[in-house]
């Protein structure tokens, strides 16, 4: 694959599903309609913590159009959500309410309006208990236990070298504490599922979701039926960013239970408020950071304590804590590292996966500290990063070594180079403050420490020379269908217009795990590459027979089989396909790609974890209005080593989108609570960036060759979040001369700080 001349890979192909999407033809879960469709609407707790004493549904059942109210006891299986241990979350709260917004029953009616009217008259008697709302309250010695095992969900350590010694022998030590807030995914389409008993003895669920296999397992467990009886079909999904994983299992199970009870289709479509209060958020965090360095800028040690506020249930906290642990020291070669990463329970909305998965929080802390260190040592911040940057052959934080595809220094050099030709406006106009900030980051690609990483993909070539690709990873708007099509097209020499990529239907594709960890193109792409390769063997074998030559004299290109040494000697691929079919050569294959397994010490987190890392350096220049605190981003460079880029346009889309999410995290978005109740559960008061808040991101890729991905690819979906958030914080610090230690750094926070400094 290395140095191969590529036809499809590396081209900005149009999105294969773009036409359906922009013409409004794409069918989302909420578009499903059946003559006897019922609608479910959940009753949710208005308080953060309490014991459920009684739920009186008698009034609700009298509301016209109400056919059923599903209570916890009606869930015949485990009444469980949770895609990994400790499996501590009920689908419907049974005895105890652990966050405001938690559902305790589902009202089912002939219309959304009826269901909602029914939900309004359910009388819940909940005995309030004082909620635990902060990290400190959760950690307090005599704190009430939110779960039987206590308030610590998980705590992990990373130990490399001898930190005590490094700190003792250092020239400078810096220390500080950083905090970040919860962030909401705010996808255009909220969580929607539609469970349909098609009368085939099974249950089918059409879902807006990220990980159909998670949903399938949960539905089976909650219905108490074999997994084989459940079919999950992913509908077009209007964004997920990590948020439609746990939540989709919750409402998918509920809809299935209700549908089976009635023998009729049931849809649950979260309202925006439910999508904010009743579905996962990004973990809020508090990170204590100590850094030891030599006078020349060599970083000799880092000691980091990470506390993640995970809300009421574990959800994906154990994995997020792990990812934060591994990434907290940053993309640097540091010999002595000691990190402790702990996730905690509080009585707030539960937290889970969100683009970046713990990395944005720790990168903000780490890169703020890098700038402070540069200041202390009177070094150029990029020089300091460059001096400590990981290179091929270096031991990273987990002592894993990559011999190639470590392009961090190239990303730093690119920023140094481009920054040279950029000048900030002069500071003469005293209304504004100007500053440029930098941040370097890395992000592991693949499931890594989160367990086995296998993807199954099928490729089927038809007699007319077209091909159908099936894979168990979901298209969420990120463009994975297009990328898989490009890879199949590249291998088979078939043009892109003849390639279809199925939406995930759990009946027809292999369980490929969740669509997470920026792994689709790398691990999924490899499975497509292999499956296409197997079918290609049949085609080459057939073409060889037809040409009466050896297979290695033939290439597949532009829908033809042609001779390597005579490009005019060619047979249309459909003729080859027909012949192969009638000769009995297999035209379909199911292949697996399995990422090298993570092997590491459980106590020290030392060992090989991810199959590759994406490295990046961001630069952001800002103008701050001294009178209003308004920030205008004047320039944003996002330079990433994401290996080979399969589709530059899609790549740019991922970088811009992820950067804007990072900008939102750093500047705009803050979930606000009063007594544990979210008080801004709408997109007017929760300031997710709008189109007018877009930043002028410039996407630059440094292509290295990653041997673990097809054609050398890595991933790009998540990494820019961290880079944009951290460089924003550093830019604001540079402009104002004030170090902000808490995200978001809003207009308000900036202006108040400037005025207090005066």
């Amino acid at each position, binding site marked *: 694959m290395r140095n191969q001349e590529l036809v499809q890979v590396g081209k900005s192909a149009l999105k294969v599903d773009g036409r359906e999407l922009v013409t409004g033809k794409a069918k989302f879960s909420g578009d499903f309609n059946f003559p006897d469709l019922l609608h479910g609407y959940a009753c949710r707790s208005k308080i953060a913590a309490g014991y459920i004493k009684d739920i009186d549904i008698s009034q609700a059942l009298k509301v016209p159009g109400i056919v059923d109210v599903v209570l916890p006891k009606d869930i015949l299986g485990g009444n469980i959500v949770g895609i990994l241990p400790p499996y501590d979350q009920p689908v419907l709260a049974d005895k105890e309410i652990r966050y405001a917004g938690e559902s305790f029953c589902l009202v089912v009616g002939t219309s959304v309006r009826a269901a*909602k*009217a029914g939900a*309004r008259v359910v009388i819940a008697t909940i005995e309030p208990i004082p909620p635990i709302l902060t990290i400190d309250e959760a950690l307090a010695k005599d704190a009430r236990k939110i779960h039987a095992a206590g308030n610590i969900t998980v705590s992990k350590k990373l130990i490399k070298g001898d930190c005590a010694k490094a700190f003792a022998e250092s020239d400078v030590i810096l220390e500080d504490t950083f905090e970040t807030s919860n962030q909401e995914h705010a996808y255009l389409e909220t969580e929607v599922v539609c469970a349909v008993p098609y009368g085939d003895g099974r249950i089918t669920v059409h879902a807006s979701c990220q990980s159909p296999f998670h949903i399938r397992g949960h539905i089976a467990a909650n219905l108490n039926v074999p997994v084989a009886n459940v079919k999950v079909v992913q509908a077009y999904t209007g964004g997920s960013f990590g948020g439609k994983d746990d939540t989709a299992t919750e409402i998918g199970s509920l809809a299935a239970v209700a549908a089976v009870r009635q023998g009729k289709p049931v849809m649950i479509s979260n309202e925006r408020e439910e999508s904010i209060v009743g579905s996962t958020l990004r973990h809020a965090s508090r990170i204590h950071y100590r850094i030891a360095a030599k006078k020349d800028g060599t970083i000799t040690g880092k000691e980091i304590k990470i506390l993640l506020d995970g809300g009421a249930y574990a959800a994906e906290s154990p994995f997020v804590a792990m990812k934060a642990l591994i990434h907290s020291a940053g993309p640097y070669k540091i010999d002595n590292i000691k990190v402790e990463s702990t996730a905690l329970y509080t009585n707030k909305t539960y937290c889970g996966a969100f683009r970046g998965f713990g990395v944005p929080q720790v990168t903000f802390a780490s890169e703020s500290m890098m700038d402070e260190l540069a200041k202390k040592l009177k070094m150029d911040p990029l020089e300091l990063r460059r001096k400590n940057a990981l290179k091929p052959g270096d031991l990273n934080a987990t002592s894993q070594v990559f011999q190639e595809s470590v392009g961090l220094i190239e990303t730093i050099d690119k920023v140094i180079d481009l920054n040279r030709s950029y000048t900030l406006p002069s500071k003469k106009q005293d209304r504004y403050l100007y500053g440029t900030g930098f941040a370097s980051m890395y992000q592991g690609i693949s499931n890594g420490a989160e367990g086995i990483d296998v993807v199954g993909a099928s490729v089927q070539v038809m007699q007319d020379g077209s091909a159908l690709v099936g894979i168990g990873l979901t298209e969420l708007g990120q463009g994975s269908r297009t990328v898989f099509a490009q890879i199949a097209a590249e291998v088979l020499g078939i043009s892109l217009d003849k390639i279809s990529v199925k939406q995930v239907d759990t009946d027809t594709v292999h369980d490929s795990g969740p669509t997470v960890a920026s792994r689709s193109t790398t691990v999924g792409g490899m499975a497509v590459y292999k499956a296409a390769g197997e079918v290609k063997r049949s085609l080459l074998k057939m073409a060889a027979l037809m040409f009466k030559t050896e297979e290695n004299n033939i290439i597949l290109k532009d829908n033809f089989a042609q001779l390597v040494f005579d490009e005019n000697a060619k047979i249309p691929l459909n003729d080859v396909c027909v012949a192969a079919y009638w000769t009995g050569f297999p035209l379909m294959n199911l292949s697996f790609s399995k990422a090298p397994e993570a092997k590491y010490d459980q106590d020290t987190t030392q060992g090989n974890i991810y199959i590759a890392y994406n490295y990046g350096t961001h630069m952001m220049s800002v103008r701050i*209005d*001294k*009178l*209003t*605190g*308004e920030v205008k981003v004047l320039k944003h460079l996002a330079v990433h080593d994401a290996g080979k880029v399969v589709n530059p346009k899609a790549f740019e889309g991922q970088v811009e989108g992820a950067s804007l999410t990072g900008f939102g995290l750093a500047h*705009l978005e803050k979930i*606000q609570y009063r007594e544990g109740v979210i*008080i*801004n559960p709408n*997109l*007017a*008061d929760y*300031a997710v*960036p*709008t*189109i*007018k*808040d877009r930043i002028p991101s410039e996407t630059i890729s440094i292509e290295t060759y990653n041997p673990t991905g097809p054609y050398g690819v890595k991933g790009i979906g998540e990494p820019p979040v961290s880079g944009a958030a951290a460089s924003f914080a550093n830019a604001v610090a540079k402009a104002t001369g004030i170090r902000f230690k808490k995200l978001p750094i*809003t*207009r*308000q926070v900036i*202006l*108040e700080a400037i*005025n207090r400094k005066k």
Partner: protein
Amino acid sequence: MQYFLSATLNELLLVLDSESNSEIIAGGTDLVIIMEESGKRPEKLIDITNIKELIGIKEEKFGISIGAVTTIAKLAANNSLPCCLRSGAASIGSPQIRNVGTIGGNICNASPSGDTLTPLICLNADLLLQSTKGERLISTEQFFLGPKKTVLKKNEVLSEIRIGNRYLSGSSGFRMIGQRNGQVISQVNLAVWLKRSAESGLIEEIRIAAGSVAPTPIRIIEAEEMLCGTNPGAKLIFQAARSVQACITPINDVRSTAEYRQDVIIGLFSDIMSQILKEPQSC
């Protein structure tokens, strides 16, 4: 719940008079949200968007008349309206909201942060309230009693907003700030109208109104007095800004701290003043 679609003003007034638990709905961009949140429904919802008499912007002898059911988008696009009102309208919500939301709804909803309210106060606009019993004209400044509270009676409709010729001359400006740039609700908004003497160039009359800094939008008379009769330079403008700051009584809420509201109003005021004084025609 019953839904009435009134065709004429007369019909509307009759319905309003006879129905006790009724509510007017115009664009519904405030009302529907309130209904959804509370789960409460009035017995009668009276849609006024078909009443032609209440729609449109007309030039009259006294100045300009704006029908209460004129959409926010129409206001934002109408060049015969003073700058502050156009900018205030343009800063409301998103295109979708502006296309259905109405000026009457913005006024009668009486949110302290309503973005056309401070412009109307500084333009000394009058509101025409009508019922079967007759009509009354009340100045915008007197209309608001508190958040969501106005002097409007149950059987009355706001039919028209009037801006006098005096206030169509002169120059004005509006500035708001929120948490982000797009589709954003004001943390603070501020409108200024002023008229300078043709001969001396001194400010002959000035009106300043601030929103989202008190239970209702308020006029800032102290700052007006400070600037009246002057040709203010940067220093005086800053002093006036300080007095604006001193007059407001903001609170902490989900959108902003009181401290930020206090701080940022200085910048907003300076911006408007420099825009009006330096480029009175630009808007």
